[in-house]
């Protein structure tokens, strides 16, 4: 779908519908998604390699402070778990699952002091027309943190035009679903992916729904920490 078509479809959907964040203020977070089954013991952290899959793209984003920033400010210098979401997504195996998995992982990371200050979470909106930096902060609720042991940044962009190269860089296509009359609905079709990025800004793992196993993801993060610390496998 072209930039103009995506923008037009999103604008049409936004004017037709009241797009309050589906999970605004997630402070009262409750498990809402059926988790993918994990019936194995993951290999120990540091016992395997995470190859460089691709580089992260650069781009302009709007931070929690409402000011413009370079995306690289959020993908370099720390191990980063990055997700692409939109605030009114209701797909239980989509954004909601990504959010819930991140929350679970956050708890595990905070429980291990040696990981403090080594990791950050980043969530970027698919829909800059609806998701202002205010609504993104509302979506993040109590988990919004700009610093501390585990920052979690909720970002948006200034426009579809600015967002598109970021999505393309991550290999993340989106389409606004239409109804039988060809009119845009409230659903943005996208493939759920979370990106694990090393401190050099290189994607080292990508998790789609079937891979959202917090235990294995935690070991991946620890593997990158060990790599940074010179404890390679």
């Amino acid at each position: 779908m072209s930039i103009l078509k995506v923008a037009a479809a999103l604008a049409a959907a936004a004017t037709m519908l009241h797009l309050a964040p589906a999970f605004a203020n997630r402070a009262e977070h409750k498990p809402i998604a059926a988790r993918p089954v994990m019936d194995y013991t993951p290999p120990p952290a540091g016992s395997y390699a995470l190859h460089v899959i691709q580089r992260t793209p650069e781009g302009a984003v709007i931070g929690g402070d409402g000011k413009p920033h370079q995306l690289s400010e959020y993908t370099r210098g720390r191990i980063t778990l990055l997700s692409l979401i939109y605030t009114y997504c209701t797909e239980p195996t989509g954004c909601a699952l990504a959010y819930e998995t991140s929350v679970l992982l956050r708890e595990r990371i905070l429980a291990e002091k040696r990981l403090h200050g080594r990791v950050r979470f980043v969530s970027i909106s698919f829909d800059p027309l609806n998701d202002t930096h205010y609504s993104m902060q509302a979506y993040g609720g109590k988990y919004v943190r700009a610093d501390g042991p585990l920052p979690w940044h909720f970002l948006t962009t200034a426009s579809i035009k600015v967002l598109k190269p970021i999505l393309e860089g991550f290999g993340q296509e989106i389409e606004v679903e239409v109804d039988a009359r060809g009119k845009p609905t409230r659903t943005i079709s996208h493939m759920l992916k979370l990106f694990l990025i090393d401190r050099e800004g290189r994607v080292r793992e990508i998790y789609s729904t079937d891979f959202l196993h917090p235990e294995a993801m935690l070991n991946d993060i620890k593997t990158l920490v060990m790599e940074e610390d010179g404890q390679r496998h």
Partner: protein
Amino acid sequence: MSIRLERTKVAAIGAFAAMAVAGAALADETCNSPYTTRLIKGQEDYVHVWTLGVDGLGDGSDKLVTVDVNPKSKGYGKVVHTLPVGGRGEAHHMGFTDDRKFLWAGGLDDSKIHVFDVGTDPSKPKLVKTIADLPQKTGFVGPHTFYAMPGRMLIQALSNNKDHGGVTGIAIYNNKGEFVAKYDMPATEIGGAKGDGYGYDLAINPKKNVLLTSSFTGWNNYMMDMGKMVKDAEAMKRFGTTMAAWDLKAMKPKQIFSVPGSPLEIRWSLNPKDNWAVTATALTSKIWLIKPDGKGGWQAKDVATIGDPSKIPLPVDISISADGKGLWVNTFMDGMTRYFDLTNPEAPKEVYSKNTGKQVNMISQSWDGKRVYITSSLLANWDKKGEDNEQFLALFDWNGKELKEKWRVDFNKEKLGRAHHMKFSAKPAAKKAAAAESVRVAAAR
């Protein structure tokens, strides 16, 4: 001992003049990578056929042939698009990227990987990239299976660029077509059996973190004239006899299984409650079951015979039903399409068979199991000769009891080439909705 046994069997098989072994994988909607999104659970609109060019037939080039398969379309059962890639590189298999937007198609001879955009307009695929550095980056040749993982593609190769034998490996490329990593197939003893270093198919069970691989043969054999090969006793010894279970996350082989007779396609049951896979062995005509061993590992068991192995039916492609209760098996030599009841995977039973062509290879079923597509070509130098060299894509309806042919596209008559691997596609939802609307408007007038 298992190697000795296999050699004995291969030698016996080699005595038969009419002999071939299959190349086929990941054929259909029920056999895609579990990481591929947008499975088509309704009516597919198009079938794309990766077709081997034939010298003197049409343009002679390998090509992607697109056939309209929607019965509501005026082009139903017709070729609506052809996309030659130039030259003949032994077109073989294809696989979707995780987002199902692109189709990667490999050449077993030239080791090129053509990337087609089938997401933008599946009625008119476009060639957007050709990856030609597989041998240079990995030392492997003959890219066979293309298996999507998030943001990247696992590529199981068949051979290597040193001796063109069967020792090979797995390559990973990202979705942009850039090389990421390589892994050699296991050639040492692991868990009581020795790996042969060969490769063929691969398939993943995400919830168990396991990758299964099977084994075939190298370039020297799959590019050799089949009649010549079966008379070459040494060549006939060089077929895979193993499968391997890998730790997927670590990409490390954990177990080797002795599976004599060249185990080919691997199909995991798609039933969420199941944790087993099946394969078929080309040379020994058996179905094998791979399942947990109760001790935290896996085991491989011979559970059924396909046809009469002494007549060398040569099972090639297999297709498992979405509920894991049935398995289609094509046998190349006798042109038979067989259906096995897999209700008890420990004891599959053949419950139906039909001759569907003079030679049949790939078989692809729709998600609901009601439609079964079949193509004819195995390998350019292994296909039958003369009048037996039928080349086609055929659609059959399956009502649970009988296959009824709906139509057949003659790839010789249409001057297209040898019809090999198939993949389904559907029109983008927006266009589909618009089309439905226009139909309603037209009806109202």
